[in-house]
């Protein structure tokens, strides 16, 4: 394992823990986007560019966006 791989693994672990301990769903949606980006970098440094591309678009873009839109919908109805 190279130093780069170790660093990225630690960052992913830290970001994942950060998302779990965040209580506010809005902050969580932003955090999960950052986590998705780190996950994409992780796949890249482990030489899986195909998976990395998927992780960028799904983890860093699509999932947080869906969460934000769903939150907007829920809050719009509740308030």
């Amino acid at each position, binding site marked *: *394992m190279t130093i780069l791989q170790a660093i990225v693994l630690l960052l992913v672990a830290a970001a994942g823990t950060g998302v779990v301990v965040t209580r506010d769903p809005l902050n969580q949606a932003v955090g999960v986007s950052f986590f998705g980006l780190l996950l994409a970098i992780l796949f890249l440094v482990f030489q899986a*560019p*195909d998976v*990395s*591309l*998927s992780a960028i*678009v*799904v983890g860093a*873009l*699509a999932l947080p*966006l*869906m969460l934000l*839109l*769903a939150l*907007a*919908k829920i809050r*719009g*109805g509740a*308030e």
Partner: protein
Amino acid sequence: MSSSVRSTVFFIGAAGLAVFLLWGLAGLPDFGNFRGDYGLLLNRVGVEQTSATNIVAAVTFDYRGFDTMAEEFILFAAVLGTALLLRAQREEEEEPAEDMAQDRRPPHDSDAVRELCLGLVAPAVLFGLYVVAHGHLSPGGGFQGGVVLATAPLLMYLAGEYAGLRTLSPRTVVELAEGTGAAGYVGVGLVGLAASVSFMKNFLPLGRPGDLLSSGTILVLNFAVGFAVAAGFVLLLTEFLEQTLEVRRRSRA
């Protein structure tokens, strides 16, 4: 259940999980010493058998093409379900009481965001098509390229051009692309069944490895998945956006 009982149950469960997890981790091969023969075998024969220089694409669209079909229909079903749920709701009237300050308009987007997003629309379409078309040659493929394609209408929306989003992705075209992409995948599989002996058989000429027009059905399937995924994501986004935006606008009026 009192908190002391709850924490007791938790600690027993956590200890059990830790024991089994450590036991399992101890049995794993060392880092970097993967012992699966399948990958090594495919690396050796894949290019020769499929003419695809991206072995990942050869696996997902040829050797394991049937699995990918099911995966595509997972997305198809998810999009369909979301669209059904949100559409049924849209008929309902929403109470206008959600907004106290009815006369307040949302703030305008900055010109920098507008120009940047509008400028990125055409490159996003081009790059998406590139990733789809080169899926059998380099990392990427139908799924990844499809989502990149779907970001083009999204950039339109970010630029504040909600009407432009509708122009760039008319509902009928998007729904047609979604259905055609999903059906096209099955169609390619069925033609393989008719032309040869098995479902998903790669029946097209394979071409020379490295050429854009090579690898037979893998290229065709990449495009089918690309269109289905792009249309699926656009459908999801527009359903959500219409649900949140148009219902609100109607209740304002």
